[in-house]
């Protein structure tokens, strides 16, 4: 199978925390690659290094060793300012917890990303926020503050905030952990759409095995090492439309996985 050019690649990544006897190796020589339009799912037990890998790949945490190449550029060879600019232009994030400003409405939370970040006019930011609210199915709740929204709605706003600038990369840390499955599905479908419709690279860290059907690649980390990388066989579904693929998944309870060389 011909491999497309990777858009995000981490090579021989290592990262430790602490010193001396207390030194913990969070990542040990981990390599990973993701292509455009893919949803990657990082799984593994607590303390396996999933979140550290996400932080290193997204330009938030400097690795002790190895390199991260995104859009052909070495993220960790950039200056702090250049990396910040890279994140501003290309990266969206959702973290555990909703992390929404309590005083601002759902619409303002979204607008803030554009008006503060890219100097977009208030009018344009508002139009984009309306579009995203429609995608989130929250059009009629744009005027509500976080304390007036349900957990699922808040997480959708948090995902919406990550998607406001149509990012090339979207990183999500346990986006469904605080939600019931109905809400969790809604949230992860938003991320899946960002990858499959808009071509973003989506990398999700989660414990939840129910997310596997939504992923194109699944990575298992254990004790800082990548133990398995699996790709859902898409040979017979690559030409299908998004809705058709979703339909196919609902018919199959368990996705078909192919093990890849680590």
């Amino acid at each position, binding site marked *: 199978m011909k491999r497309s050019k990777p858009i995000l690649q981490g090579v021989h990544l290592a990262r430790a925390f602490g010193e001396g006897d207390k030194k913990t190796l969070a990542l040990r020589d981990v390599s990973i690659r993701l292509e455009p339009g893919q949803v990657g799912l990082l799984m593994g037990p607590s303390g396996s290094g999933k*979140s*550290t890998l*996400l*932080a290193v790949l*997204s330009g*938030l*945490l400097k690795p002790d060793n190895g390199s991260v190449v995104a859009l052909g550029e070495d993220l960790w060879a950039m200056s702090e300012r250049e990396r*910040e*600019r*890279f*994140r*501003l*232009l290309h*990266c*969206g*994030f959702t*973290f*555990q*917890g909703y*992390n*929404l*400003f*309590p*005083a*601002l409405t759902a619409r*303002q939370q979204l*607008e*803030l*990303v554009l*008006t*503060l*970040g890219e100097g977009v006019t*208030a009018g344009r*930011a508002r139009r984009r926020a309306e579009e995203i609210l429609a995608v989130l199915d929250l059009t009629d709740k744009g005027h509500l*503050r976080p304390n007036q929204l349900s957990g699922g709605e808040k997480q959708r706003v948090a995902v919406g*905030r*990550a998607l406001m600038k149509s990012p090339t990369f979207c990183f999500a*840390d346990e986006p469904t952990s605080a939600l019931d499955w109905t809400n969790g599905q809604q949230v992860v479908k938003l991320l899946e759409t960002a990858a499959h419709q808009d071509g973003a690279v989506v990398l999700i860290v989660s414990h939840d095995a129910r997310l596997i059907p939504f992923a194109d690649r699944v990575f298992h980390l254990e004790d800082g090492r990548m133990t398995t990388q699996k790709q859902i066989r898409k040979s017979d579904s690559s030409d299908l439309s998004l809705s058709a693929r979703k339909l196919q998944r609902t018919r199959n309870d368990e996705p078909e996985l192919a093990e890849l060389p680590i």
Partner: protein
Amino acid sequence: MAIHSYTLTTLWHDRQRFLPGVLAVAFSAVLINLQTGLLLGLFSTTSIPIDHSEADIWMSAPGVLSVDLGRPISQANLSRMASYAAAESPETLLLDYSYWLKPDGSKELCIVIGSQLLGRPLGAVRELTLEMRGRLSEPGAIVVDEAELGRLGITAVGDRAKIGDQRVRIVGLVHGLKSLTGPYVFCSLETARLLLPGSFDQATYLLARCRKPEIAFNVVESLRGHSDMSAFTKEEFSRRTRIHWLTQTNAGISTAFTAALALLVGAVVTSQSLYAAVAASMREYAVLRALGIPRGRIIAMVLALSFWVGIVGIVLALPTTFGLSHVAEVMGTRMLLPHWLLGSVMLVTMAMAVLSGLAALRSLRLTEPASLLR
């Protein structure tokens, strides 16, 4: 603009959190305004004989520091004054301390001010009406401020008392001329000569009017060439008198100290209030940092918060200041709130609020986006 809109939304939503900061700014501004206003009001009474008279030029014995500390100067100097065409209607003024003997036998220090009364006198305070000046032409006739009656041990017009060993009679009362030191006693030059020591060819001040007050400065500059006398414009002598009292009594220093203390308390409370607000939204700010929003813009958000806390504090402080100043006036305490004072206090308290915002920025140091992934 967007930053200010989010800031105002946040300020209103978290008003309970920001209230201590807003009140601290308001408290600082009100305290400094009132303290300084009271001080200015208090010391403005020391220059009443200058500020309430019509004289534009004041000539005195050399080196006089304050209007109440004048020393005798020869009336012959009037000719010097008269040699300047711009210095019109030169006349003399007698002003000195004396003892007021109350009916109960106790004594009170008072300031006797004797001036010409006819025509358009320069030395007589403008509160002395034409009718009063007519009555003052009688020997021993005096006018005092109504608020000083108690201090002088008298009750009404017509009462009698003694200054030194001379009998005096109250022929009228004025308002708003209460003194910081001894009560002012207004009388004619002739009565003052009876009440105060000194020879007839001497005066305490020689006064003149200028048709254009701005010329007074030039005349005064020329008169300063004489070493045996001093000359001042009305404004100079008034300021000199107040500054003398301000420095002599250390009241200025104590007021400045209180103002600094008010600012310090205000700054601490405001910065703590802002710090807590920023710390409470630390994770949200960290998300913005992760999204690549430059630190500078997040700092701008925090400083916008401190700016608006300052503005709201000042908006609260102004009516409070005017309200309390009105209460003080009603209670008989003079308070001056000139525009320069209100403007300066606004600037200083705004600076305090913004500096408090800078201090609150230290909580932003904790907003490390990677910490959201641990």
